[in-house]
């Protein structure tokens, strides 16, 4: 019985992880590591954001957002603007992207 419950828990948690959504933001104006902190600080304040990865060279930020939370482009644009940069593109990634 215990094994069955554990297996169920694993399946459920796996589903939760799989349900998190990923977004890719293109950010203009980013040209050095020190500026990344201010951008990530603003993005981390967005609801549901669990993880942020920034590629300075490509001017891209990947956000992992909690299941059930939808990140909208205006929200992302405002956060990027608050850090002093400009949103170039906004895309919700499909699983595996």
């Amino acid at each position, binding site marked *: 019985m215990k094994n069955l419950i554990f297996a169920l828990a694993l399946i459920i948690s796996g589903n939760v992880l799989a349900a998190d959504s990923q977004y890719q933001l*293109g950010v*203009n*104006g*980013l*040209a*050095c*590591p*020190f*500026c*990344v*902190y*201010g*951008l*990530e*600080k*603003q993005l981390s304040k967005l609801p549901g954001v669990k993880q942020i990865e*920034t*590629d*300075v*060279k490509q*001017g891209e930020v990947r956000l992992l957002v909690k299941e059930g939370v939808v990140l909208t482009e205006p929200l992302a644009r405002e956060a990027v*603007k*608050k*850090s*002093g*940069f*400009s949103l*170039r593109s906004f895309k919700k990634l499909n699983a595996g992207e």
Partner: protein
Amino acid sequence: MLKLQGLTFCFLMLNGFMAWAAPMTFNTALPVADDEFLMRFQSFVRQSGNDPSTLDRDLKVKAFVTVLGYGVSSKLALFGVLPYLDKEMRLSVNNQRWQRNTNGLGDLTLFGRYTVYQQNQLGQTFRIAPLVGVKVPTGEDQETDALGELPQPFQLGTGSWDFFAGMVSTYQTLDYQFDTQLSYRINTEANNFEAGNEARWNMSLQYRLWPSSIQHGFLYAVMESNLIYRYQNRINGYDDPNSGGLSLLLAPGIQYVTKRWIVETVVQRPVVQNLYGVALENDYTFWASVRFNF
């Protein structure tokens, strides 16, 4: 000793210490994000010993400067700068060598910077930001030692409220960064002494030497220049003929930049010093600093 009042210790005044970001000896127009804090700890040693007068003056100023910046919005940033100073002066009067020292907190500087223009593109940004500030007379300005009251330029604080304004511009790419700043400083009178006003034109070029990965940070080679014109000081309402003049300083340095901190060092040396009278010339200034954001 009264004669000292009429002499200028030209590089005694702190300058460039308000810098917080990319350039080391002045400011930048790069953004401070909304609700972001910046902290900078900067130290420098300034040696001035090339004395054209017969006093054989030798002046060393050591400073530890704390800078706190805050982003009120993505365009408006406020800064506070507080130096701790240690000054030592040696000079010969009547064939006797004298030494005078003082140390303690200097004057507090507060200033704001507002971005009026920005153009962001992939991997590059261009910005223009005026700045305006005030130096508050928080440092001791009537200190005495065994020889009497210290000369006004040698005091920790000026005792005066001084004002400055300028414009800084930055163009930054992934490979290099160029900053330039024009500024003008108006000094007011206190204790019958008024330091001459000051006009500056600063430039900085930073070139990325190594590598592109953010995990490892960026290593920049830096070259900065400071063209400074100081008007003559006024003592008891009269111009001091041994003060003020034109200086051009060059400062090669190196800077390592990560996401959370920057460490940097630079040596600033004069290449031109056309000073009035027997104003004391600067030999070099060695700077080192570390900055954090949070």
